[in-house]
């Protein structure tokens, strides 16, 4: 199973997606400011400076546990999406794909970061208001989504590890006799 994970073509896209996920989640908190700044007539220097400065909010505007969950969910989302894409390529003809990753990464988006401190993502699915009533202010959602992603990842790796060929079973004489006895019974 580890062989499936420790591969360049798995690790690189996973890390790229995880970084993208983390950046976007951090920037989502100030999506109004960033939209206005990036689309406005400001200098490129100002835009870059602001993007870098807001990125610092990852450490200051989130709790330690929230940040840890964000990184875990980002990595798991990256791993799931990578495997999913690889399966799409490999199993195109099978027509049956697992979409657990889609749903749980969405939950990860919602629950990561500071739930009560204005992530616009919380507006998604109408969960925003109710999250602040949860005992841990939405951290629960992060934990659940991480668990779902982990299960999804495990299932995908497990099913990927199955042999992709139909094995030819060779019967010897005694096997054939046993089979005949069984078939006679029914």
């Amino acid at each position, binding site marked *: 199973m580890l062989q499936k994970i420790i591969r360049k*073509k798995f690790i*690189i*896209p996973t890390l*790229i*997606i995880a970084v*993208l*996920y983390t950046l*976007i989640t951090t920037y*989502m*908190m*100030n*999506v*109004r*400011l960033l*939209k*206005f700044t990036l*689309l*406005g007539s400001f200098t490129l220097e*100002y835009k870059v*400076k*602001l993007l*870098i*400065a*807001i990125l*610092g*909010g990852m*450490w*200051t*505007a989130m*709790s330690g546990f929230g940040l840890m969950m964000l990184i875990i969910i980002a990595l798991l989302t*990256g791993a799931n*999406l*990578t495997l*999913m*894409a*690889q399966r*799409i*390529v490999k199993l195109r003809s099978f027509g049956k794909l697992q979409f657990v990753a*889609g749903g749980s990464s*969405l939950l990860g*988006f919602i629950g990561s970061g*500071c739930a*009560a*401190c*204005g*992530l*616009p*993502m*919380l*507006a*998604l699915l109408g969960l*925003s*208001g109710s999250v*602040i*009533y949860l005992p841990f*202010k939405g951290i629960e959602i992060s934990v659940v989504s991480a668990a779902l992603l982990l299960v999804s990842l495990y299932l995908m790796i497990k099913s990927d590890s199955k042999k*992709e*060929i*139909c094995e*030819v079973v060779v019967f010897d004489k005694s096997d054939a006799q046993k089979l005949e006895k069984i078939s006679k019974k029914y």
Partner: protein
Amino acid sequence: MENTQQQKVIEPNKKTGEPLNKNLAMICGTIILSCLIIAGTILYSNSKSSSNVVINDNAQNQQPQQQPIGPVKVSVDNDAVLGDKNAPLTMIEFSDYECPFCKRHFTDVYPQIKKDYIDTGKMKLVYRDFIAVPSHNPLATFEAMAAECAREQGGDSAYFKYHDEIFKRTTSNGNGLDASQLLAIAKDLGLNSTALQQCLDSNKYKDEVAKDITDASKVGVSGTPSFFVGKSSQDGIIDGTIIVGAQPYSAFKVIIDEMLK
């Protein structure tokens, strides 16, 4: 027949030695797919982001506000002002005394903003209440009212001294300061604690706190701390650019410096 079957069976094994360009295509495909999912989620959430994130006694009856892009008109109202009243810039802070991130902002960023921009007359700070999380009450509202009561006795200066003490002493998350601790702050600051107790008991500033929350909801504040920075105006209404969360000092500095140009 057997040969054909065997050929079909063996075919996938040949794929194990995948060419480099196929791996590259797979990596690129994965990245593009994830970008599409992420971008789609963002676009979808933005189109839905008009729903109010905060639910509390005062804000829940508000109609969902469309969150505007860019500066919004925010009033300083009749709230406490720190710094030169004629400063070219105004920062309106919507904060909650029981919010741990507001306390973090107070501890880590506020002193530097005060030193560099407020004390130098470049910017004034207006503190407004926004109690975002129901579990922060009743203490958060009591603390907000107590600060207003302190202001009644000693003006804006007393308000901000009281404000500083609340943030220094509170343990946040709704476990903060009870009535006796609020009176102790008043005593320590040389205020009349009996008068403050009477002021608190009268609930005279409850509506003021509620009005701040309503105003914040109207301008799209969805959590604390949230800040609006804009050029000062005569009528006390600024075109404020919103900054959400306990952002580092560098984020405030970049925005304020750009506005001061």
